[in-house]
């Protein structure tokens, strides 16, 4: 089925202390959101290596989300400041290489912002559905 029907696939790197807890809160408050996202837990958004993000795109992800604490609130005090610097560059560089910057999202989501996490997933899923499929050449053939 074409991507319009197929649900877009989002790889989400969530920081354990804020965004992952926020996603859990969306769960405990039974807020449903699209099944497009698959979450990988990292201790801090500062742990997300841009090479993981590009690898996800190469393996067929329609969108990649990196989520961390609001600057100033990082459990490790400065982790997300480096996240912000790195992905200010990477977001633009991905776009420069032809991966539409709307496919990549970095967002600050605190432990008490369950609804904001669910909303982010809904927004991204809708936007990716409109963006349509990524061209096949960019996606690595799945050699088993």
């Amino acid at each position, binding site marked *: 089925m074409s991507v319009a029907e197929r649900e877009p696939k989002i790889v989400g790197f969530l920081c354990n202390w804020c965004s992952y807890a926020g996603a859990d809160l969306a769960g405990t408050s039974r807020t449903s959101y699209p099944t497009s996202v698959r979450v990988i837990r990292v201790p801090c958004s500062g742990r997300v290596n841009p090479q993981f993000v590009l690898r996800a795109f190469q393996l067929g992800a329609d969108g990649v989300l990196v989520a961390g604490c609001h600057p100033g609130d990082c459990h490790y005090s400065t982790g997300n400041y480096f996240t*912000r610097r790195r992905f200010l*560059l990477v977001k633009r*560089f991905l776009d420069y*290489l*032809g991966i539409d910057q709307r496919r990549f999202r970095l967002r600050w989501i605190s432990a008490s912002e369950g609804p904001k996490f669910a909303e982010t997933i809904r927004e991204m899923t809708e936007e990716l559905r409109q963006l349509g499929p990524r*061209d096949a050449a*960019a996606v690595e053939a799945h050699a088993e």
Partner: protein
Amino acid sequence: MRSEAVRAAARRLLEEGKVVRFLGHAPGFDPTSPFPQLITRAEEAERLVLDHFCAPNLAKYLLDYETQEGVTAVVLKGCDALGLARLLADHRVARDRVWVVGLPCPGMLDRDKAAALLPGVQEARAEGDEFVLTGAGGERRVAAGQVLLDRCLVCAVPTPDDADELLGEPVPGRPVPREEDAAVAALEAMTSAERKAYWTEQFSRCIRCMACRNVCPACNCRSCCFDSEEPRWLSRVTDGPAQEMFHFVRALHVAGRCVDCHECERVCPMDIPLMKLNHKLLQDVEELFELERAFVPREVEPLGIYRPDDPEEFA
């Protein structure tokens, strides 16, 4: 041009025992592509040459002698000196084990441009704003702008500022202001799909010879992540995504640390416009982190520090 001066310097330094080895250039397969040359005895100095084709940057070869005794002398142009500054900032080379023989650089020739103007060109002599090319096909006078390397046209640092001795009088930088790289702007104006097609085509020509990594002073890791087995950051297969990963990672790893010496582009056998990648990142680093001349190495690299009031686009 300066071959005599460099031979004299080499002989002196080696005879006085100031240095145990001397890194310079020597003629290669043909006179327009000289090779790096290491000499350890004064009498070998005759083999050195220093002319308008000595573009190769010798700074990174110092890494090979890090673990050997004695001071190494090295001939460095302005742009090469920035490469050394990069290695110093990255704690890969100790300044006290290097003797810098600085060349106030008059600008180096682009071998391909020269060959196009005078097939079989052997030599070039600078006269004012022109060059006199001589070779098998006779002689030809051309304007400097037609034959210099692109980077030399906008060179802001022709004279190394940290040299232990200079081969001749310091040369002022060309007052050309550093404006936005037109090529980058052209690419940015394209649509996402057009850029995708452009880079896919460029990267498809890459034969993964690693010359760009090997020559780059900023790419000075002891073991490169591309060689890592576990995790396999880079697949050995040269298909579309892997090529994209290679160039994405190579450019990102030197983001904020590239010294804009253009060597990667010069040595690339497949003429892939690598500086279009590095300049894009260099511009973004300067604009986003409010840095002047981000290609000059600093104590801590731009991605190694932060400011609480960095641009906020991710609320």
